[in-house]
């Protein structure tokens, strides 16, 4: 399954990129699976997405939790808690 990953703000800087096209391996079905898969990259990925770190996730521009099932061509965004206004 192919998805588009977007990173913003502190995470964009930590990961060194604002976006990537990712081909997810079989078994990565939910947003939670995707986060595990990213953490398995180790380094800043494991560090920034560690349990207890504050970040938010959205699928196709709606806030989404780890239980959400991903679909082909989904736009998945990971970012820090928002600080606008």
């Amino acid at each position, binding site marked *: 399954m192919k998805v588009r990953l977007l990173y913003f*703000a502190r995470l964009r800087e930590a990961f060194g990129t604002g976006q990537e096209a990712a081909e997810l391996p079989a078994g990565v079905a939910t947003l939670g699976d995707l986060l595990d898969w990213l953490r398995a990259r180790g380094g800043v990925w494991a560090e920034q997405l560690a349990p207890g770190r504050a970040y938010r996730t959205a699928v196709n521009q709606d806030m989404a939790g780890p239980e959400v099932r991903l679909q082909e061509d989904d736009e998945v965004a990971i970012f820090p808690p*928002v*600080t606008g206004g």
Partner: protein
Amino acid sequence: MKIVVQTEPFDLTAEVVALYRDHPGVGAVASFLGIARDRSDGEEVARMTLEHYPGMTERALAQIVDEARARWDLIDVTVIHRVGELRPTDPIVLVAVAAAHRGEAFAACAFIMDYLKTRAPFWKKERTAAGERWVDARESDDLAAARWTERKAQG
């Protein structure tokens, strides 16, 4: 309803007048202007950069305004949020709500700001004498937003 994310400044009078000029039923416009401060967590801030998530920002703001319109009897709403580089005393955000009466206008304006602060994907990075830093989200903003889930409707 007008929802805009832009780098340019905006004209407060023009935005507010547009909400009531053609609606003689409007008796109240409550508006909020968020302004870049020169201090944050005790440190002097020379400038800040606002990043956002294009597409989702407008979508999230529209959902927040829709929720306000479902809760209160509103005539029109404008939300303008700036992004890019801003300096102290630069306006960041305008939320203006037109209604027949002031109760609805005040409540909806405060509601939209509280939800914007916790749900709209904007991030501030401040430049201080010590360098650049991302602003941390505030627990007080989460608490401000949470109070609206307790009291569902009010005039």
